């Protein structure tokens, strides 16, 4: 009873938040899974139970298996690896202090403050595909730089890799974030450790490889997890870029269109549940690891 009086008030204070999250996160997620096992189609919800029929149907759905899944895999791969490599290089360039570091950092990071809708609207025009005299956007810049052969149809290309073009605006938006994570990680390495290695005769690249690099592993993990989950759930960037283009269709877009335009609620719920599973497999171990690490300190 005395213990209850000790922590009871605290529990009471956060009870509204806990209840709200219990309903809006866990209740909704559970209800969505339930919907995915019904045959709801059209305006009136159906409460029957069809088991995994909707999931089985998705396996035979060409839009899902031949476009959405390979598309999101390609996009995630290009976007995550691209942002990691460029963000890491930016952090290395800035790490040991340069004149105007704050200016460079701000310039690399500001796109993150811009909505994906605005980002998509700007980049859609930059990746415009006018040819010959009416060439414009990035293609025009490339031509002016004498790199005509680099010309691309970007996301309107007929190639399977068209969706990789969207990694450019997505990376524009989020690479600065990756840079900040790496930079914070590098600056977190105690100077004494670097100095000790130098005293032992290690060259700067060796100091970096043997002292700094191992300490960046947790940062790398954070960055991969965050970028991957963003990649899987992003909707508005593709939507505002070119929503009727099957080449850049993803599960998140298919879910939206089939549910709220087509009325296939059960199918939409099944796609959303698969997305949730994909995100949960990387996020749950990550949260578990973070909370455990923190307790150890």
């Amino acid at each position, binding site marked *: 009873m005395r213990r209850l009086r000790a*922590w*009871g*008030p605290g529990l009471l*204070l956060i009870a509204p*938040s806990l209840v*709200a*999250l219990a309903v*809006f*996160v866990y209740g*909704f*997620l559970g209800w*969505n899974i339930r*919907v995915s096992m019904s045959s709801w189609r059209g305006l009136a*919800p159906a409460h029957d139970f069809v088991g995994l029929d909707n999931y089985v149907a998705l396996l035979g759905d060409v839009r899902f298996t031949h476009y959405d899944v390979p598309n999101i895999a390609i996009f995630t791969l290009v976007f995550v690896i691209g942002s990691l490599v460029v963000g890491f290089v930016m952090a*290395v*360039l800035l*790490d*040991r202090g*340069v004149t105007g570091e704050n200016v*460079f950092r701000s*310039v690399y*990071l*500001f*796109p*993150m*403050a*811009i*909505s994906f*809708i*605005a980002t998509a*609207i*700007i980049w859609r*025009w930059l990746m415009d595909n*006018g040819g010959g005299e*009416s060439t414009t*956007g990035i293609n*025009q*810049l490339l031509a002016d730089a004498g790199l005509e052969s680099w010309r691309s149809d970007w996301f309107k290309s007929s190639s399977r890799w068209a969706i990789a073009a969207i990694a450019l605006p997505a990376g*524009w938006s989020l690479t600065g974030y990756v840079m900040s*994570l790496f930079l*914070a990680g590098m600056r977190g390495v105690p100077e004494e450790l670097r100095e000790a290695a130098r005293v032992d005769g290690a060259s*700067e690249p060796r100091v970096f*490889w043997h002292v700094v690099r191992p300490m960046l592993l947790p940062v790398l993990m954070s960055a991969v997890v965050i970028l991957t*989950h963003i990649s899987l*759930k992003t*909707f*508005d960037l593709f*939507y505002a870029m070119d929503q009727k283009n099957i080449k850049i269709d993803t599960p*998140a877009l298919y*879910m*939206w269109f089939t549910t*709220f335009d087509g009325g296939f*609620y059960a199918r*939409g719920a099944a796609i959303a549940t698969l*997305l*949730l599973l994909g*995100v949960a497999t990387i996020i*749950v171990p990550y*949260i*578990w690891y973070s909370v455990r690490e923190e307790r150890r300190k």
Partner: protein
Amino acid sequence: MTAVPPARGHGRIRSPWANYVTTARYLALFALACFFLMPVYALLITALKSPSEVSVVRMWQWPHALSLDNFAIVWPKLREGFTNSVLMALPASVLSSLLGAANGFVLSKWRFPGADFAFALILFGMFIPYQAVLIPMFQVMSYSGLRGGLYGLILVHVIYGLPITTLIFRSYFAGISEELIEAAKVDGAGMLRTFVFVALPIAPPAFAVAMIWQFTSAWNDFLFGVLLTNKDRWPITVALNNIAGSQAVPFNEAMASALLACLPTLLVYVLLGRFFMRGLMAGALKG
């Protein structure tokens, strides 16, 4: 990759290559800056050209004369969305931060059995793909009559903002000394008094981080806005997508409206970038 010049001030012999390395490093940094600024350059000069001068083919050309006509054309179409977003994002960020402050305080300084587990459950809400809650949200908001107006939108932004604001405040309060809390307890202060009179007065930096983060996310959100509001209550992102979201819209109008739509968050970023950065770091679960 490891273009790291010898550290200065250690009495080390400077390599003859050091100057080249430094120059190469600045060139690389400058080239990267150009890449990040390129879209903004096109955006700005197009929006500032007079409508008759704008042409997609000449998007990189410097304007002959500056003009604000494009903004005059698109502002009437954007004004309503802009107002809606202000009316939605401000209360959403304030409420979410207040609740997050209470949660963060309890989860770090007034802990109950299982507090860490509760925190992990709260955190998960930050990472879920929102597609997996859209259908139930649509149903609940429709049945309760909250769909269509701004209140429903504010409510979901407050709730789905709780994980990140709780995280920010929990990290912040974890850093204040236990003695401060103990002293208040010895003085006979209960949980609520300690929270209001000891914890809140030292929390303004955390409020700045949480509110800026929440304001930016609410302002930039599209998915909840397009699901939950009717045309007259569209937030700015939905309005922007409908005005400028097709190639049929004149280039100058698309650029001018995109610029207007991101002005508030850009302003916040320029003026309060320091706090924006800290929010970023919190998002990676590192305090």
